[in-house]
């Protein structure tokens, strides 16, 4: 599926619409003009979340009551209109004008993103890594979202019961009730555990195969593994039984803590570069390449499952990568994803303007895009411009990765 067009209304400083290429799109412009906002709008349209804020209402522009993002997607010449309407108190999703539930809506446009914020996946707490994996699974099967919601609901109910038991002074009276919620928890937890472990296995297989990617980012071999909080406590291949045993054993501890101590909400995803834990021992460069390889692996898993390209967003591409790596990454992504990048470097915009749709962003609007951008210059000037900017590009080489 391809995002062919995006219309924005009341979203941050953005105005108007943009048309896209099915392969590479470059939002180019000075800082604070709204390049990242355009990427964010694409992200929100696909995921109904922002990669910059947990409060979606922050995206509503100051002079608007609500923001509306309208996208036109194309899948084998069938087009579909997607809309996300954000108001201060709610979020409404529509496909072809019809209101949709979140899990039904999410299958329409699959978006992955690479941004500085994404480094939290490597450096932050385990919830960031679980979220990355969960998003990958949702891209494959949106119904997984309902299972996650169900799991979180059970955890919330059980947490409350544990607090009540603790405060009652006679926790034993609550054992049978806790057992009931444990049983609810076990059935959903097993589904979450199975989905996550098999997804991580697919990612690991993909990372082993990702020779190109590894060539782009250096020699590190990156590997990923699912680390259940029950690891070392017994036979994980009998997950439900093991969880059952552990929950029974830890009931007094859970009551004392007043919250659930065991379950997939306590699991982690281990990331190794050259056999060592990236978050602790990896250099900044290794951490960045690990994230890139991981997202590339997610894209490959998606494409091999659905035989169609997802959307990939790379914010501030030159802050992340040097020229050689940008070049390698862009050829690597050709045919694998519909890519949207942002940059403030004219040189990058120029360099890829034959292969990409370049969208010049000024004060939130698309001031020009490639056809215009290209046509304004006469052939001779164009050639001169090209030579000049390529030189300029070499001078302003981005800092190399370690």
């Amino acid at each position, binding site marked *: 599926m391809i995002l062919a067009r995006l219309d924005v209304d009341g979203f941050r400083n953005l105005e108007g619409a943009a048309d896209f290429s099915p392969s590479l799109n470059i939002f180019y412009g000075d800082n604070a003009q709204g390049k990242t906002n355009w990427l964010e709008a694409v992200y929100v349209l696909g995921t109904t979340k922002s990669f910059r804020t947990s409060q979606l209402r922050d995206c509503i522009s100051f002079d608007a009551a609500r923001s509306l993002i309208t996208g036109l997607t194309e899948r084998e010449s069938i087009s579909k209109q997607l809309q996300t309407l954000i108001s201060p108190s709610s979020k409404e999703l529509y496909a072809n004008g019809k209101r949709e539930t979140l899990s039904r809506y999410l299958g329409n446009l699959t978006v992955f993103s690479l941004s500085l914020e994404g480094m939290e996946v490597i450096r932050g707490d385990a919830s960031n890594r679980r979220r990355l994996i969960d998003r990958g699974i949702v891209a494959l099967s949106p119904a997984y979202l309902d299972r996650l*919601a169900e799991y979180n609901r059970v955890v*919330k109910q059980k947490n409350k019961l544990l607090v009540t038991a603790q405060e009652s002074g006679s926790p034993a009276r609550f054992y049978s*009730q806790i057992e*009931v919620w444990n049983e609810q928890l076990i059935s959903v937890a097993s589904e979450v555990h199975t989905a996550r472990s098999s997804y991580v296995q697919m990612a690991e297989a993909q990372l082993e195969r990702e020779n190109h990617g590894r060539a782009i980012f250096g020699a590190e071999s990156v590997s990923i593994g699912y680390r259940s909080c029950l690891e070392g406590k017994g036979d994980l291949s009998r997950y439900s039984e093991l969880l059952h045993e552990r929950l029974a054993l830890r009931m007094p501890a859970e009551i004392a803590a007043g919250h659930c101590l065991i379950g997939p909400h306590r699991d982690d995803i281990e990331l190794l570069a050259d056999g060592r834990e990236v978050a602790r021992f990896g250099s900044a460069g290794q951490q960045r390449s690990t994230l890139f390889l991981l997202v590339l692996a997610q894209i490959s898993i998606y494409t091999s499952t659905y035989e169609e390209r997802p959307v990939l967003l790379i914010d501030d591409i030159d802050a992340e990568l040097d020229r050689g790596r940008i070049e390698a990454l862009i050829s690597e992504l050709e045919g694998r994803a519909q890519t949207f990048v942002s940059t403030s470097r004219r040189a990058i915009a120029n360099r890829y303007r034959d292969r990409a749709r370049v969208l010049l962003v000024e004060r939130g609007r698309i001031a020009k895009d490639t056809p215009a951008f290209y046509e304004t210059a006469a052939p001779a000037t164009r050639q001169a411009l090209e030579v000049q900017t390529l030189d300029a590009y070499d001078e302003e080489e981005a800092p190399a990765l370690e």
Partner: protein
Amino acid sequence: MLDYAEPVTRLIDELKKLPGIGHKSAQRLAFYLLRSGRNEAERLIDSIREVKDKIILCSTCNNFTDVDPCRFCAGAGRDHRIILVVEEPLNLVTIEKTREYKGLYHVLHGALSPIRGIGPEELKIKGLLERLRSSEVEEVILATNPNTEGEATANYLSRLLKPLGLKITRIAMGVPVGSDLEYADEVTMHKALTNRHEI
């Protein structure tokens, strides 16, 4: 709010307490009542007073009724060997609509939900146990909602009732989690009943 005369504000406030009624709907209803004839308003007042005066909970099954025991519990045509357990009186109506079920009912008036402060004591479970100990019941069908809380409640009841040596069954809902029996149609409900399984 000073926009209306005080009695109007009070009416709006009362209407707003009804489920599914927000401020705007409450306003619309209040103004409808203001414009309507005195007779219409009196009929509404009377019907509310009447249900409050005459409708009680059946002392056996806890369903809403105007006679005690209710028509189901007293009914000679009903099969007294089966009791079907539901969360709310409304769910009972859905099951009656299938015209397939001829047994008795038991209404819990809720489902387990620690977040909402609902534990076993808050539900009409004690009465169910008494009924089962002193009657000819052979099977208990657990027809709580197929969502997190309903499943937990069914699970709790099955543990509690197992020692009594009865057949305990759970309705088979092919409907997605998070749903409510209230929205199930007759066909779905009929299937759920016929395909119930022992737990």
